[in-house]
């Protein structure tokens, strides 16, 4: 199996506070990996460090086998001719005063299966609301728009940060349906989630992050079977859901 993403010994800071202490993780081709952990464990920062939105001070990032350490964010997103990295940030980061269609015009047109037409067939609701301002969409529609926007880069790897956040269970199911479809098309996914039960049911492999370091790594099914362990590693949300 080829590794799509390898992060090695990532050290990241926000100002003077040291957030990530040597985080290493990998995602193989077509694999779904989840990154769990309590609030403030450093999950979002890990994704931001991979995208170089929070440039890591130490460590290396390889994507599709190529060392991208030090590349600017937009080059990491576009990739180097063999598919890019789609990033769906926590809180969706819509361009609220732009229409749905305008939001989808921001990523540069990239050859591949995802175009405006195929995106609209995956998310018919976005097609219906194409001329609405993104700020007027419901939370679920905004999450779909954020995913759609990232898909237009035709990524081979998708970084999803808390896609279920603030959404009703029915809507979460709808969003996960779309993610499952991407997975079946062969897109590898690194999924950050507070909702460990949801993420473990979906992923092949799991990492658990605590205080900026990886404290557990293993098959998702194994971790899912041990709810006590999930509770102790990944926090209260999981125990309530279990």
């Amino acid at each position, binding site marked *: 199996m080829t590794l799509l993403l390898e992060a090695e010994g990532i050290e990241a800071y926000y100002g003077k506070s040291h957030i990530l202490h040597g985080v290493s993780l990998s995602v193989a081709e077509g694999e779904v990996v989840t990154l769990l952990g309590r609030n403030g464990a450093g999950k979002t920062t890990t994704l931001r460090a991979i995208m170089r939105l929070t440039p890591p001070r130490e460590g290396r990032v390889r994507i599709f086998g190529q060392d991208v350490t030090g590349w600017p*964010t*937009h080059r990491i997103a576009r990739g180097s001719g063999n598919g890019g990295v789609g990033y769906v940030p926590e809180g969706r980061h819509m361009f*609220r005063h*732009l229409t749905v269609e*305008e939001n989808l015009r921001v990523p540069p047109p990239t050859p591949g299966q995802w175009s405006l037409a195929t995106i609209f067939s995956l998310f018919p609701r976005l097609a219906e609301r194409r001329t609405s301002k993104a700020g007027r969409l419901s939370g679920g529609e905004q999450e779909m728009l954020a995913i759609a926007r990232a898909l237009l*880069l035709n990524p081979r790897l998708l970084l999803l940060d808390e896609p279920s956040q603030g959404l009703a269970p029915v809507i979460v199911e709808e969003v996960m349906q779309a993610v499952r479809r991407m997975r079946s098309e062969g897109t590898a996914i690194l999924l950050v989630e507070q909702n460990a039960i949801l993420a473990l049911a979906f992923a092949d492999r799991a990492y658990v992050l605590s205080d900026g370091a990886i404290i557990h790594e293993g098959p998702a099914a194994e971790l899912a079977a041990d709810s006590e362990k999930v509770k102790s590693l990944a926090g209260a949300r999981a125990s309530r859901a279990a």
Partner: protein
Amino acid sequence: MQLLLFGAFNGLIVGFFYALMALGLSLILGLNSVINFAHGGFMALGGYLAFTLAPFIGFWGALAVSPFAAAALGLVAERGLIRPLYGRDPLYSLLLTFGLALILEDMTRTIWGAQGVPFAIPDFLNHPLSDVYFFLTGYRLLVVIVAAVATGALFAVLRYTRLGVCIRAGNADLETVASLGVNIYLLRALNFALGILLAGLAGILAGGQLGLTPTMGSSLIMPSFVAIIVGGAGSLIGSLLGGLIIGVAAGVTTMYIPAASEVVIYLIMALVLLIRPRGLLGQEGLFE
């Protein structure tokens, strides 16, 4: 009535100069997060470049080429001087552009002289179009038309082109734009050049109307900042509106109380800030 129309039309022309300047300043403030004090310097540069080019390529050629020449110089300044300061305290870029403004002003003084030069416009544009409305010359009409067309073109670019969509998206959240594969270094450079293009155009139009002096930039930049505040920071239509409002107000005031023509601009600003601190069309929460 005649006097009022005269004042209002004069004001409309100056208002368009303010508006073109304010639009460029707003673009640069929005995406580059730079308060560009050198904007007036680039404006004067546009005018003087047209003055130098006109003998070779004619008035119309100079009108078409010089804004782009000014924009090219703006691009060099952005690449070489401003880019290293992105992401730092805004005070750095403010100091830098302030210094750049002084350099540009002295540069024009050294190259073209401190006295100011007359910018010759085609003769047929100098005549009044009507005996009654003696102030309505061909050139003044041209200024209004060119400025209006340029403004319309700017809004069309922002609304319909991918570059424009990215600029508007970047105003709100540049980081997310970068994460979607857009080269924000290039985007910021193009946006800066676009702002300077408008300044250069304003410089040429103003040169034909008011003459060219090395200080023309510094005398037009303050009212342009006022235009942004009156119209509302963050709104381009606000900047346009603000420029026209203070221009017309100053023009009309000149007719009746000449001494108050400059004060009135600041009175309007004070009034707007008292009643509606975000400006006429400004975004909520920027200053409140």
